[in-house]
């Protein structure tokens, strides 16, 4: 077992354990803290997959902004019994359990029999096409050129549409959350 596999197993166990903690804790503030651990560990998986930019973005947006937002919402919607049972299970709990188990079994069965998945090998040097543009030296510059570049193959139009989505979300959050 090489070092990358060992690190993968450690991170995977912490990920699954913290996700289970989010789901089964009785105190919802503890769930939110386990969720922060989950976000931070997911960025370790991205580093393992040579996606440095997404790892940093994961830390900044999820472990930073979304976690603070969720904790704020928890404190603003405080219920009286936050220590005892602030994260109760619904009536559909015993229906949800077999549904989730079936979905997991289906996906894992499909990936284990697919010949495309089992024969895929990693390309540790993903850069090096013969395009018009030179291949950038690291992942952040590469993502930047793929998002902005006017001359090469790039995702400029989806990027601009994403900015419109963010603007609409900001205005919607302000309008919905405003006092009457």
């Amino acid at each position, binding site marked *: 077992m090489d070092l990358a596999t060992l690190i993968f197993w450690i991170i995977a166990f912490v990920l*699954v354990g913290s996700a289970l903690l989010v789901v089964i804790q009785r105190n*919802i503030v503890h*769930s939110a803290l386990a969720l922060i651990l989950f976000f931070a560990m*997911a960025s370790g998986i991205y580093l393992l997959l040579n996606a440095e930019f997404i790892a940093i973005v994961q830390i900044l947006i999820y472990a930073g902004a979304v976690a603070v*937002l969720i904790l704020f919402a928890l404190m603003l919607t405080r219920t009286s019994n936050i220590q005892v049972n602030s994260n*109760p299970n619904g009536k559909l709990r015993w229906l949800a359990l077999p549904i989730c188990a079936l979905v997991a079994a289906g996906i894992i069965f499909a990936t284990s029999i697919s010949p495309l998945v089992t024969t895929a090998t990693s390309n540790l040097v993903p850069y090096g096409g013969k395009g018009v543009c030179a291949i950038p030296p690291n992942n952040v510059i590469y993502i930047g050129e793929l998002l902005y570049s006017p001359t090469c193959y790039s995702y400029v139009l989806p990027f601009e549409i994403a900015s419109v989505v963010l603007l*609409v979300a900001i205005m919607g959050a302000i309008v919905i959350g405003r006092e009457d």
Partner: protein
Amino acid sequence: MGLTLNHFLVLGALLFCIGLYGALAKRNAIAVLMGIEIMLNAVNITMVGFSFFNQVRPYSTFLTGQIFAIFIITVAAAEAAVALAMIIAIYRRRSTVDVGEIDMMKW
């Protein structure tokens, strides 16, 4: 043997189903939102795994999986902001965040 694509797909599937359970079985609206965030992160792990193991020559240089993951993160952040604003507005009006009691649009 080193890491294969199957490792990441199975990890993503497990995390997705844990998040699905959280979204289906919880009664606190913020806990439902946490389950949805876990599901989105599981999909991101799968996407970046596909991008890493993609070897079809012209397409593997476009890093489609990583770009897709960036857009998923963008939309997830927007969704979290709007959903939490809605939860706070509902709490201000009705003093509850229980999704079983928020039934004013139920016929």
